[in-house]
């Protein structure tokens, strides 16, 4: 045996047994950063929300202060006075956007997913559409904003087609933004429906549409629902595309219909966050808390639905 291969077969047990646990610890630490970040985020934002409050480390008092702050933020409109500023118009706008985006984006996305998975014959065209959707999912949100600006808000430059800075233009932009998410999750959950279900229904004489609408869609519903909620929560949290499509920085009257001017919760947060100095810190932090609470609960519902009903 040459010297080189003898070197290769030396057990080096010491370093090998040492490296293992060290590496495992590093991996565990890396995984925990996610949890730590989430905790730090919430704590820091709560602390910032209470930064204006005088008083000792009294948990019950702090909770009451926080509750008062959030209640005030929900009921007040925008203001240049930090003590009276709030997010009412932004919250109403965001709820409008949520409803309109759900009404436009979800039927489009689910429809496209069903068509691709159940109707479109396999072939070059289908692969092309599929690749296109995968790429759309990676397009930065600000680019969707540019698209919405040129197409919906400005109508390609034709005043007759232009929607202007209205709720509908924002909702259409967000619908296109969440379209890939919904299409992809719809397709994934349709793929988990066993082919035997389709075959059984077809064998009993059901037509194709009856198979899809009566049997395949209902059994794929939990997965589709997950995709819908994830898509909508993304739409509610988006800021950049709405800034492009003309969400107003400061708006004092809540929109009452799809053709009204609008703003959005994250857009208002952005505007408060840009204010120099510490005066608006509780306002901004309180707004973040409201937004994060809403989005995390939407995501949690989606994850629970998926883990309970999906992947059988």
């Amino acid at each position, binding site marked *: 045996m040459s010297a080189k291969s003898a070197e290769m077969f030396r057990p080096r047990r010491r370093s090998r047994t040492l490296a293992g646990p060290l590496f495992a610890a590093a991996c565990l630490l890396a995984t925990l950063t996610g949890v730590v970040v989430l905790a730090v985020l919430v704590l820091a934002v709560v602390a910032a929300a209470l930064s204006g409050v005088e008083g000792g480390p009294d948990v019950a008092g702090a909770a009451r202060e926080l509750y008062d702050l959030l209640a005030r933020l929900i009921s007040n409109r925008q203001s240049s006075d930090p003590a009276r500023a709030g997010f009412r118009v932004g919250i109403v706008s965001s709820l409008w956007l949520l409803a309109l985006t759900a009404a436009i984006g979800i039927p489009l996305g689910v429809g496209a997913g069903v068509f691709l998975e159940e109707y479109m014959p396999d072939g070059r065209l289908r692969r092309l559409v599929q690749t296109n959707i995968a790429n759309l999912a990676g397009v930065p*949100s600000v680019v969707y904003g540019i698209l919405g600006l040129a197409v919906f808000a400005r109508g390609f430059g034709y005043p007759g087609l232009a929607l202007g800075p209205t709720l509908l233009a924002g909702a259409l932009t967000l619908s296109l933004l969440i379209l*890939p998410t919904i299409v992809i999750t719809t397709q994934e959950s349709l793929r988990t429906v066993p082919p035997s279900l389709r075959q059984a229904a077809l064998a009993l004489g059901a037509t194709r549409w009856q198979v899809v609408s009566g049997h395949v869609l209902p059994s794929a519903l939990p997965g589709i629902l997950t995709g819908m909620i994830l898509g909508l929560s993304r739409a*509610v949290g988006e800021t*950049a595309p709405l*800034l492009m499509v003309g969400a107003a920085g400061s708006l004092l009257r809540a929109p009452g219909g799809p053709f009204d001017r609008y703003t959005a919760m994250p857009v208002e947060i952005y505007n408060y966050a840009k204010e120099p100095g510490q005066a608006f810190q509780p306002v901004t932090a309180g707004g973040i808390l409201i937004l994060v609470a809403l989005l995390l609960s939407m995501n949690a519902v989606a994850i629970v639905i998926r883990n309970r009903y999906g992947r059988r």
Partner: protein
Amino acid sequence: MSSPQKPPNPPPPGDDPWRGQSRASAVAEVAAPSILALCGLVTVLTTLGILVVLAAQSVQFFLKAEIGLGEFLFGTVLKPEATPPKFGILPLIWGTFLVAFGASCIALPIGLLSAIYLSEYAPRAVRAALKPTLELLAGVPTIVYGYLALLMVTPALKALLEPMGLRVDQFNALSACIVVGVMIVPLVSSLSEDVLSAVPQGLREAAYGLGATKFEVSTRVVLPAGLSGVAASFILAISRAVGETMAVVLAAGTMARFTLNPLTSVETMTTYIIQVIGGEASYGTAKYLSLFAVGLTLFAITLGLNVLSSLVLRRYREVYQ
């Protein structure tokens, strides 16, 4: 949609289950696929719309600003307000990649290690608790990360580095790198973990049989086997960092320049777009139109990275029977 049990028009004398298709369901049979196909068409039209809008408006920009493509792509000065205005995109590309590079330095190792932990080390119960938490993190909107940069990261950097004699700007690239890096960790870890978990169990068992330790199995057997997927997830994460907007707007500021110093402000392509749209530039001016040209460049870069990612995944995938 109507089912065959509903009474058709006109109603039949009795409820006959063998009467065949009603007219309504025959209509649905033809109408449904066409309506669904239209929905599918929207996805194609979205891509076409993006391409047409960006291309057409960029051409307008080049005509309006009277500069050539070379001057735009290789110009090193970006001063839209100067006379004559200068529209060189290189400072923006520099800023973008500075932030993306810094974010990758944080996100790629952490994401990869946490993927290895989740797929190789974590007990079933820990994994079941950790995975949803990490997925939840992906739902935090980007504006929150931007605010976190202003609220915590920049003050922390100031407290840490200014006693050492380093000047830290209120808006700086480093804090953008940190928050964007933290933001894309879940993307790296969940995509990589999917690939590592898919490596066949037999490979691990063969390595254990030859006397390898768990560390050796993880790093020399499982990781190489899933390398294409890990690389693809890295590229995708970089693409996400390049396209990230709100976190960078709030953290990095809007100073278009070449700098290697991450403690000063830089401007990325996305922040330039937001700055132009939020500024006073009116529709049709060269400055306003320049956002489309910058948008086209951004779109091309992210699309290129995404395509590269899927090519890597497909071409270098190890196939196991």
